[in-house]
């Protein structure tokens, strides 16, 4: 059983008053997310990430295609007992306190009053909401609301949690805490599906990612598979090289950028071809000593930009 499975999931919106045309918010998304994975759902703004999450939460209905969560159709109440959801830029009843909000949601899950109190207190501790928990939510900053949002998504100890832009509105410390929280959830066996356009988060946390652009799935797979073989050159670090020797090597060989490091060391960027051995031999001949030689790989950002820049077809469907 997959945690999430979608088959040709499509959502069109009618745009225009007099002659409405179907706008492709999501076009034929087919993907699977396995149990226990931390899955990154990536894409630029407007790519269709939130539309997908809303379809999975049945806040909107698909135009065609289907989706399952934990082996059951989306919207099944028994499935809702086993999942958590943090919407993008969450808003909660601002007349309630953080504590009351969590009690309310815990009550909907059917927990007894003592259990509600215990869960609310533990979760607010976990997301770093201290004495403010007794203040009305209208007094909360965006970052604090985000933390409350994460707490409410975990009130039922979900097996699968959907986080829409979980780092949004958080300061660097908050982002680090949420990253750690996601890793703790993974360690507990919880599947985490999170959308983000911050690639560093995905790179740190995800076992697999899907990249979405213009409502279409561009690619999906293991990050290691996507990036491992994308070696685009070499980084050579040497010491004992003087300026004259360096400029001589740069003139006659394919040496790219040279960055002067501390203690007389240089980092040299070499192209993938020719192989680095000859340049290295020449440098050693000039009196340099090898510190390190490492392949330079694509970052997720490079990969992302390359994938997304190729996906620019019209989002207006031809068929009405």
């Amino acid at each position, binding site marked *: 059983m997959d945690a999430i499975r979608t088959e040709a999931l499509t959502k069109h*919106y009618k745009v225009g008053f007099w002659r409405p045309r179907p706008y492709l918010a999501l076009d034929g998304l087919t993907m699977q997310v396995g149990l226990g994975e931390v899955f990154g759902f990536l894409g630029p703004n407007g790519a269709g990430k939130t539309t997908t999450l*809303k379809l999975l*939460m*049945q*806040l*909107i*209905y698909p135009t065609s295609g289907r989706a399952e969560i934990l082996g059951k159709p989306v919207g099944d*109440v*028994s499935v*809702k*007992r086993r*999942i*958590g*959801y*943090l*919407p993008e*830029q*969450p*808003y*909660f*009843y601002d*007349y*309630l306190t953080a504590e009351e909000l969590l009690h*309310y*949601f815990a*009550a*909907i*899950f*059917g927990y007894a009053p003592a259990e509600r109190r215990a869960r609310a207190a533990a979760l607010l501790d976990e997301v770093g909401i201290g004495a403010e928990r007794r203040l009305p939510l209208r007094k909360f900053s965006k970052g604090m609301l985000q933390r409350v*949002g994460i707490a*409410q998504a975990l009130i039922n100890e979900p097996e699968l949690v*959907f986080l829409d832009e979980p780092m949004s509105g958080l300061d660097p410390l908050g982002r680090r805490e949420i990253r750690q929280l996601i890793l703790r959830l993974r360690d507990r066996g919880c599947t985490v599906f999170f959308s983000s356009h911050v690639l560093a988060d995905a790179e740190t946390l995800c076992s697999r990612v899907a990249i979405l652009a213009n409502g279409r799935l561009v690619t999906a797979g293991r990050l290691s598979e996507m990036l491992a073989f994308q070696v685009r050159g070499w980084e050579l670090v040497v010491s004992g090289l003087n300026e004259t020797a360096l400029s001589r090597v740069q003139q006659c060989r394919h040496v790219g950028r040279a960055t002067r490091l501390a203690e007389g060391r240089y980092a040299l960027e070499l192209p993938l071809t020719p192989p680095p051995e000859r340049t290295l031999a020449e440098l050693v001949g000039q009196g340099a000593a090898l510190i390190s030689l490492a392949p330079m790989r694509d970052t997720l950002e490079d990969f992302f930009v390359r994938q997304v820049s190729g996906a620019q077809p019209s989002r207006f469907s031809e068929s009405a």
Partner: protein
Amino acid sequence: MKVIGHVAVNVFKESVRDKVLYNLVVFAVLLMSASYLIGELTAGQDVKIIKDLGLASISVFGLLIAVFIGIGLVWKEVEKRSIYTLLSKPMRRQDLLLGKYLGLVLTLIINVAVMTAAYYAVLAYFQAVSPPDLRASWPAPATDPALLTAIALIVLELMLVTAIALLFSTFSSPFLSAILTTAVWVIGHFNQDLRDYGATIPSPIAASIARGVYYVIPNFSAFDVKLQVVHAQAIPRGYIGLTTVYGLTYIALVLVTAVIVFSKRDFK
């Protein structure tokens, strides 16, 4: 069922924290001032005016709450996106809608109960200060329990208005919902005239439209027994029973329609 209860309690909590119950203070002050003024003007001779004024005030204050909270019940959830988190919890869309409805009905009932207590307190005071010979001339005591019949039917009417406001709020803006709900309420009070008009006009098309509106729009005048109660006229039990069944059936139909509309909606 428990989920509906939790949603309802939360709606009540919201109305308390949004200071909706402050209207009760306004009601009490208005009623007491008006009673004092009328007492001065009529030298305590006409308790009917106080009775009439009190029932009308309960009706108007209740109507204001039903319309102005009812139209925002669903709209606010959608507009502020709090519905996203709520619907991800183990509940169906109809649970949310019915919880919202019952929460507002609970708010209304508590409001009307407090207003009724204030109303009876004013009437009891009036009765106590009126001379015995004047009291003897009244067709019914000031604190006539029959007034409760009129109040019960006001509550039923408010429940129906709330259901209608909720229905409109499932698909339109608060402004439009307020206009539509008020229009239905006003037309509903003249429904009987509409039927009579339909029977007399020569144009068959106009007659069909009048008949159609008569059947679709609830007959709100059926819930209005204020005049009879104030004048101590007996209201047949059969009438009360039939009106209650009529009101509850209408409420059920309106809520079912609201659930159907709400269940099909996309929350973009």
